[in-house]
C-alpha cells in the first residue's frame, strides 16, 4: 500500500519559525519515507535536542526525541537490539557536531547500517542563536555579541576521518535533491551521514535562504539569482569506492572528497561525497561472533519458557564454575 504524505505526518501544531529550513528537511524526509520501499512500521526516527529535535514529533513513525548530543548512541542501541528496524537518527549541528562530537566520531568506527541526518544551520537555534561548530571563525550572526571566536569543523572531513561509509550533503530547500539523498543514505549498507545546509531565518542572517539561492549574485545572462549550491555528482564526480579499486585509488578518492568539502563561498558542493559499501557493517562483525545474531537479535530472543522460568540453560554454563558433584 503506497503511503501518502499525510500518513507520515502527525497532526500536531508545528512550532518552527516561519521560513525555517527545518520545514524543507521535514518535507523531504517525509516524502522519502513515502517513496522508500521500507515497511513504515519498522522505521524509527531518533532526534536530538534543538529546534530540529521536534521533527520526531511531526513525523508519524516511531519517534524518539532523545537528549542533547546523544541521538547517535540511543539510535545505535535500538539498531543493535533489533537490526530489523530502519533507524534514522536526526541531529542538530550543535547537538551532533558540538556536544555530540565524540559519539559522532565513534559511530563512524562502528558502521552500523543506519542513517544520520544533521540540520546544519550554523547556530544553536533553540537556545537563541549562539554560534554552532559549523559557524566560521570571525562570522557574526545576528544574535552574537561578538564575532564567532572558534574555527569551524568540516563535517564531511570529520565523517571521513571517523569512518562513515556514506557521506553526503544537501540543502534544506532543494527538496528533490535532499529527498533522493536521504533515500540513498537509507539504502546504503552502513553508517550514512547527510549534512543538510539549513537556513535559520531567525538567528543566522549570513547563511540565509537568499545566500544559498544566490540572490546577491544574479546570473549575468539570465539576471536570475545563481544558486551557490551545485551538485558535485552532476559535475561528473563519482563518490563510489568499488571493490576493484586499489589502495591508491581509494587514497585518491579520499583526497578528492576533502578537497571538494573545503569549497565554500560562491560554490558550495552538495551531493554524495563518498560511498563505500565494502566495509563490513557492525552487524556483519557481530555475526562473526554470534552467528545467530540476525535471526535472534537481543530484542527478539526468547527469554522465558512457557512456565515463565528463565530460558537460559545456565546450569550447563556454570558447570565450569562448580566443583564437586
Amino acid at each position, binding site marked *: 500500500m503506497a503511503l501518502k504524505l499525510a500518513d507520515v505526518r502527525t497532526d500536531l501544531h508545528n512550532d518552527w519559525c516561519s521560513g525555517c529550513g527545518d520545514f524543507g528537511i521535514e518535507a523531504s524526509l517525509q516524502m522519502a519515507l513515502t517513496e522508500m520501499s521500507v515497511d513504515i512500521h519498522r522505521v524509527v526516527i531518533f532526534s536530538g*535536542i534543538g529546534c530540529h529535535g521536534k521533527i520526531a514529533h511531526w513525523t508519524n513513525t516511531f519517534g524518539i526525541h532523545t*537528549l542533547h548530543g546523544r541521538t547517535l548512541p540511543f539510535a545505535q542501541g535500538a539498531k543493535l537490539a533489533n537490526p530489523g528496524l530502519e533507524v534514522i537518527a536526526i541531529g542538530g549541528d550543535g547537538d551532533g557536531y558540538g556536544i555530540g562530537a565524540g559519539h559522532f566520531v565513534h559511530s563512524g568506527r562502528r558502521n552500523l547500517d543506519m542513517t544520520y541526518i544533521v540540520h546544519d544551520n550554523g547556530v544553536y537555534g533553540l537556545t537563541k542563536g549562539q554560534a554552532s561548530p559549523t559557524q566560521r571563525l570571525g562570522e557574526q550572526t545576528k544574535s552574537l555579541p561578538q564575532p564567532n571566536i572558534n574555527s569551524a569543523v568540516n563535517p564531511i572531513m570529520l565523517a571521513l576521518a571517523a569512518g562513515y561509509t556514506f557521506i553526503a550533503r544537501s540543502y534544506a530547500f532543494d527538496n528533490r535533491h535532499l529527498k533522493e539523498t536521504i533515500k540513498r543514505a537509507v539504502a546504503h549498507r552502513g553508517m550514512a551521514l547527510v549534512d543538510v545546509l539549513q537556513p535559520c531565518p531567525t538567528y543566522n542572517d549570513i547563511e540565509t535562504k537568499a545566500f544559498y539561492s544566490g540572490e546577491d549574485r544574479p546570473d549575468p545572462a539570465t539576471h536570475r539569482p545563481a544558486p551557490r549550491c551545485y551538485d558535485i555528482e552532476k559535475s561528473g564526480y563519482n563518490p563510489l569506492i568499488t571493490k576493484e579499486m586499489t589502495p591508491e585509488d581509494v587514497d585518491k578518492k579520499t583526497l578528492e572528497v576533502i578537497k571538494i568539502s573545503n569549497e565554500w563561498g560562491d560554490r558550495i558542493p552538495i551531493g554524495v561525497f563518498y560511498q563505500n559499501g565494502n566495509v563490513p557493517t557492525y552487524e556483519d562483525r557481530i555475526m562473526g561472533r554470534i552467528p545467530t545474531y540476525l535471526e535472534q537479535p537481543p530484542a527478539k530472543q526468547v527469554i522465558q519458557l512457557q512456565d515463565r522460568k528463565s530460558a537460559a540453560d545456565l546450569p550447563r554454563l556454570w558447570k565450569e564454575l562448580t566443583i564437586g558433584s
Partner: protein
Amino acid sequence: MSSKTVNELNWMIGGAQGSGVDLSASAFARSCVLAGLWVYGTREYYSNIKGLHSYFEIRTSGRQIRSKVEGVDLLATFDAETLVRHADAVTPGGGIIYDPALSQTPIEKVDTLYKDEIKQIQGRLAQQGLGSDANAILEEAKRRGVKLFAVPFSSLIQEIAKRLETSELTKVNRTVNVLAVSVSLALLGLDRRFMDESVHQAFSASRKQKLVDMNLAAVERAYGYAKEKFGEGGLEVGLVPIQSGPRMFVVGNQAVALGKMAGGCRLQTYYPITPASDESEFLEAHENFALKEGATKDGKGSVVVVQTEDEIAAITMAVGGALAGARAATSTSGPGFSLMTEGMGWAGMNEVPVVITLYSRGGPSTGMPTRTEQGDLKFALNASHGESPRIVVCSGDMEECFYDAFRAMNYAERYQLPVIHLVDKGLANSNMTILPPDPSMIDIERGKLILDGGAKDGEYRRFAHSEDGISPRAVLGLSGYRFWNTGDEHDELGHINENPENRIRMMKKRMTKLETADREIPESEKVSFYPAKGHPDVTLVSWGSSKGAILEGMALLEARGIKAEFLQIRLASPFPAQAVRERISRGGLVIDIEQNYTAQMAAVIAEKTQIGIRNKIVKFNGRPISRDEIYESVRQVVSKPEANERVVLTHGA
C-alpha cells in the same frame, strides 16, 4: 594432630601485581574446594598493572563462610614486601613461609612502600630494639610466637629446572607461586592430590602440557621439601578433606553476570572501568550460550556486549536497546555512573526499563579504584536533576548478587524505570563457595509489555494513565503501536506538552509507580531480618557487603553473651520505611554499620523514618569490614554507647 584446629583458617599470599599471586590464591582456594571445603577469598591490589603490591586472603572452613577475618594463620611470601607489610598480621601460633635469600633486604629498599610507611615500620621495629630489614620483621614475628618456615625458592626452582632438563629459567621461575602454595598446603597437611588437580585445572586451559608438567613438578618438589624440612610443621591449624555436595566457586561480578543472563539480559553495554568491567568481559566470553529445551528450535541464546566510547553512550545505548524490546543493562562504577545520570533521568522520564549495575569503589572522584566502599548510596538515590523514579537494590552477598541481578531485570520491566543494582567492590572482587543458585526460584516477569502486538485499531497511548501508574508498553517496530518519546514533559502519546494540569498528572503517574512497586515487592526482597535468640541487646542495621561480617560477628557476640539481631536493608528505593521503623524502634540498642564516611544509610533512615540512629560504626579506608571488627566494635559500642557514637574502623593493610 588432636590439638589442631581443623578446617578453620585464614591463609594469605602476597606479591607484586602481575607476578602470578592471583593464580596462587586461586590454586590454594581451588585445592581446598576440591577437598570439599568452603572458602571465602578477598583480594587487595593497587590501581596499577604490574609491580605494586597485591595480596589475597583465603579463608577456608568446613562449613559455609561469608566474611573476612582478622589474623593470618599462615602467610606465604616470596618477596620482601609481603613479609614487611603483612608479617604483623600473623597470629601467634601461626606461620610465615619466606625465602631466606630475602631476609637481608633493608626496609627502605622496598621502593613500592610509601615513605611514610617505611618510617612507620622502622619506628615500630626500633621500639623493639630491632634492626631495619626483613630479618627484623621475622624476628619480631618470632618473638610473638609465630613459626618461621624458610624456603629457598631459587634453589628449589633450579632443582626443578634441572629435573625437567629445561633452560627456560624465566618460565620455571614462575612456579614460585605454585611452590609457595604447595608448601603451604603441605604444612597444613592437605593431601597433595588436591593441589595436583588444582594445577591441572588452572593450566590445562592454556593447552601447554609443558606448563602443566612444570607446575606439577613444583608441587611435588614443594611437598617433598616441606616434609623433609618441616615434618608435621607444628602449626596449630590444619586441613582435612571432607564430603560435600556441589558448590559453586564464584566471584561477585560473575554472580551478577550469571544473574543477568538468567534474568534475560540480552544487551549489555559498558565502558571499561574497575571493578565493573570484569562482569562485561565475563558476559562477552560467554556471549553464546544454550537455551533450555523447548525455548527455541535451535536452542541458541546470546547476549550482545558492546564496549562503548564512554559511559554516556553506554547508558543511552542500553536505553535505545530497551526501547526496541531487549532486556538491556550496563555496568559501571562511580566515575562512569556520574556520567550516566543524565541518560538515566531520560529513562526515568520515558519509563524505559534499564538496569545499571553500579560497582561501588573508593571515592570521591577517581578515589581508590581498586578498593571497596559504600559511598554511592545517596548519589544513586538522588542522581539526575529533577524528580524521577528509580529502584535501588543493594546486594549483600554472592547469592544476592545473582538473584538481585535477575530481579533487577524484572523490576525494570514491571515498573518501567531504571533500576540501580549496587554491589560493593568488596563483593565484586571476592570469591567464595556457595550452593549453586537456582534460577527457577524466580519467574521472568515482563509486566505490562505488549507481547502479542496484533494489528490494532485506535490510538496507542504509550503513557496512558492508569491507577498503578504503569501503562501497557509496546516496543519499537511493533506494528500498530506507534509511539513517541521525549525528555520533555509529554502527553499520553509521548508528545511534548507543557500544560500545567498535564504536568501534574504525569509527575504523579511516574512517581506512583514507586508506590506500586513498594506495594507489590514482597518484604522479603526489601529487607532481611536475622533475629537474635531471645530479646536482642543490639539491633545492627546495615546493607551491602557488610552482611557477611555482621552475620559471623553476631555469632561471636552471642558467644560472649551479647544478643544481636540484624536488619539488612536490601531495597533502598522504594524505601521500606515501615519495616525499618518497626524493627529499629522495638529492638535493642541500634547500631548502624556502613562502609562510608557519613553513614549514608543512617541518613536515609532518618529521612524516611525520622529516627536518628545515634550509634554508628563506619569504615572508609578502602578495606572491607571483617568479622572481628564487627565483633570488637559492637562490643565497644555496647559497653559505652554514649562514648562511642561514631566508631571508625581502621583495619586492613
